[in-house]
């Protein structure tokens, strides 16, 4: 028999710490042991699937290892990092990625917030509208890429067909330098605007009604109410959504792979797409690992700055 822990205590001010262990429970497996036993499978899985590969990639990033060539992983110090940071090819891809992230996330934020604002003002059919707007977000990016590829086809695509019916000429959406990147921005915006909309809608719904009522009593204009009540209260939440979307957009791969394959030439190759080529065309695993680690570092550093700004905003 195990010893029973008293439910009450003689000492005033002290509360009984825990319920008695179940009959038959091992003496050795205390509360702490039980907690470890429950957490360890998830912890091991996390270590095996995330932490271990990350550390392995970190190690490989300092070597010239190739997954297919085998052979020893020779230590090259910061050689891979220096080569990546000084490569003109990487600079080009970084600029492409930057233009894409700013263009896509900017457009999504404006549209997403606009749609959310319009929906929040409706009293009827709000649920149905929200659900309908969320559909693109639920589709696989590969599926989205494939049907947009057909829709944007210069010869047979529905987009050019519609442009033709209103007297406009054919546009080479996916095979010209400027339109190809624009097409990626448009397709990504189509798919991910609902995400911003959803977060913005949550923020708009949470704005206390009495603030608007007070503003109405003061005969505040619509624009004044938006500028001084709605936007400041929704802004922090919107910025979090922007942060998530920017991180996602920064590592864009699938849409590029399906829609343009990085073309024409390399004009729509993003950093992630370039890593894929370094990793799998030449199987330069060491370089690709360093490239990946650098991308993670960029995201971490930028996110830290961003979060600090958000905290300041919150404190303010």
């Amino acid at each position, binding site marked *: 028999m195990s010893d029973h822990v008293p439910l009450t205590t003689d000492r005033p001010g002290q509360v009984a710490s825990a319920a008695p262990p179940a009959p038959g429970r091992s003496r050795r497996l205390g509360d702490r042991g039980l907690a470890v036993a429950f957490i360890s499978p998830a912890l091991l899985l996390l270590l095996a699937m995330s932490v271990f590969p990350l550390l392995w990639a970190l190690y490989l990033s300092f070597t010239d290892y190739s997954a297919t060539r085998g052979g020893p992983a020779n230590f090259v110090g910061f050689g891979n990092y220096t080569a990546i940071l000084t490569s003109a090819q990487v600079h080009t891809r970084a600029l492409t990625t930057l233009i894409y992230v700013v263009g896509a996330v900017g457009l999504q934020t404006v549209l997403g917030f606009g749609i959310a604002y319009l929906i929040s003002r409706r009293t009827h059919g709000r649920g149905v509208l929200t659900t309908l707007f969320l559909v693109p977000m639920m589709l696989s990016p590969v599926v989205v890429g494939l049907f947009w590829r057909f829709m944007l086809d210069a010869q047979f695509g529905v987009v050019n067909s519609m442009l033709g019916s209103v007297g406009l000429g054919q546009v*080479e959406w996916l095979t010209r330098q400027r339109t190809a990147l624009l097409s990626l921005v448009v397709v990504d915006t189509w798919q991910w605007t609902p995400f911003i909309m959803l977060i913005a809608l949550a923020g708009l719904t949470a704005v206390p009604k009495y603030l608007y009522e007070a503003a109405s009593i003061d005969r505040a204009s619509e624009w004044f109410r938006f500028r001084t009540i709605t936007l400041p209260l929704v802004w922090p939440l919107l910025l979090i959504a922007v942060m998530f979307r920017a991180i996602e957009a920064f590592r864009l791969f699938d849409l590029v792979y399906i829609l343009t394959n990085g073309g024409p030439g390399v004009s729509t190759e993003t950093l992630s797409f370039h890593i894929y080529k370094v990793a799998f065309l030449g199987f330069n695993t060491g370089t690709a690992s360093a490239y990946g680690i650098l991308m993670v570092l960029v995201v971490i550093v930028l996110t830290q700055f961003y979060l600090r700004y958000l905290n300041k905003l919150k404190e303010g």
Partner: protein
Amino acid sequence: MRLATAAMLLVATTMTACGGDKDDGAKASAPKAPATIPELTKDPLTLSFIWFDWPPAKALETFANAEYKKERPNATIKVNTVPNANWHDAMFTQFAARKTDFDIAILDSQHIGEAVTNGNILDLTDFVKKNIDVEAYNPYLLAAYGQYPQAETGKRDENASLYGLPLLGDTWTMIYRKDLIGDKPPQTWDQMISAAEKCQSENPGVSGLAFHQANGSDAAAVTYNTVNGVYGGNLWDSKTRKIDGVLNDAAGQEAMDVLVNKMKPLTAKGSGNWFIDEVNAAVAQGKACIAFNWIAASGGLLDPKQSTLGTTREQILDKLGFATLPSQKTNLVPLGGMGMHVSAYSSTANQAEALNFMEWFERADVQKKWAAAGGVPSRTDALESPEFLNAGPFNQVYTDSVPRMRDMWNVPEYARLVNIENTNVNAALNGAKKPKDALDDIAKEQQGVLDSSGRKGGGGL
């Protein structure tokens, strides 16, 4: 403190795990297949192939299960397919894991160097000597699908090792609209461009030319290489491993100029990402006067269900003609097709079965049956047989093209070389780069890849 200890333990484990690979270096050469086929199992066995998804893959599975089973009833053939764009990655990521779910890899001829250098496929030299009648083939065909180091164009080095045997021969055919440009196909590249120009101007809505321009796989690269060959250019000097100054010499520049400034304006708007399927679609819908495509992918053009050119095969053939490529300064044509290679990581029983399958497949009677089933054989007797020549209107084109073939490089760096060429040719075709700049960039970047073997870090950029 505990967290730090755990982290150190994890790093140590990581280092230990990585250190295990250091022994692989000594094994980085292709293991040898036995000269004699080992005893085969009597238990049920599945012999797996890996290829990309296209009609010949389905044809091979059907043919092999129907015919090979007569000889080996316990064996089932499974041809696993992946999209063309993932073909190289699908094979080589498994090779990298030193474990494959396929026994026979169907490699593009240019993949051989990478697979041999990494020790991913068996050395078949002794096996071929004992089991295959090498005299039955055009020497270059046998070399192109198996020899490493690469043979000179048109030749085979009998002292070099063989790592594969031909599965499917292929080259480009010129597909032309007989009803629009006449029964007689253009004989020179200049005549072909003139005919396409005239046809386009006389037939609104129909473009003069359709060819591969995409930046994936080897699409745009093969197109440039073909024109380069026809205009007397060279891809490299294999002995000195020199590309810069060879590819972008006067002949190479002329070829790029012809491709971008004379041929591209005759293609449909937005065709800058076209590959096999898009070119076939344009022909089948009557949207192109002259097109270029791989013979092995042209069968669908004769299917009335997929064509607007006629309701029967005969009606379609009244309008479509198939011819060998026009010549100009040379008569070179691109070598396509693939060979069979035995995975070094397959089980012993499956490797034995794979060798037996290859020996069976290369027999004269089986090659003719493969031809009749829609395949493109490689043995000369099969290529000249009625079974092959009567099986498709483009088969004579293949037989006539065999002595004219030229391949790309099959060095281990192939995947990077072809990517550089694809992206730059695609950029030139779509106005993202000037033709001369694109060609100079190809030469410079490819040379950089060949010269970068001793580089400390940053390989692959």
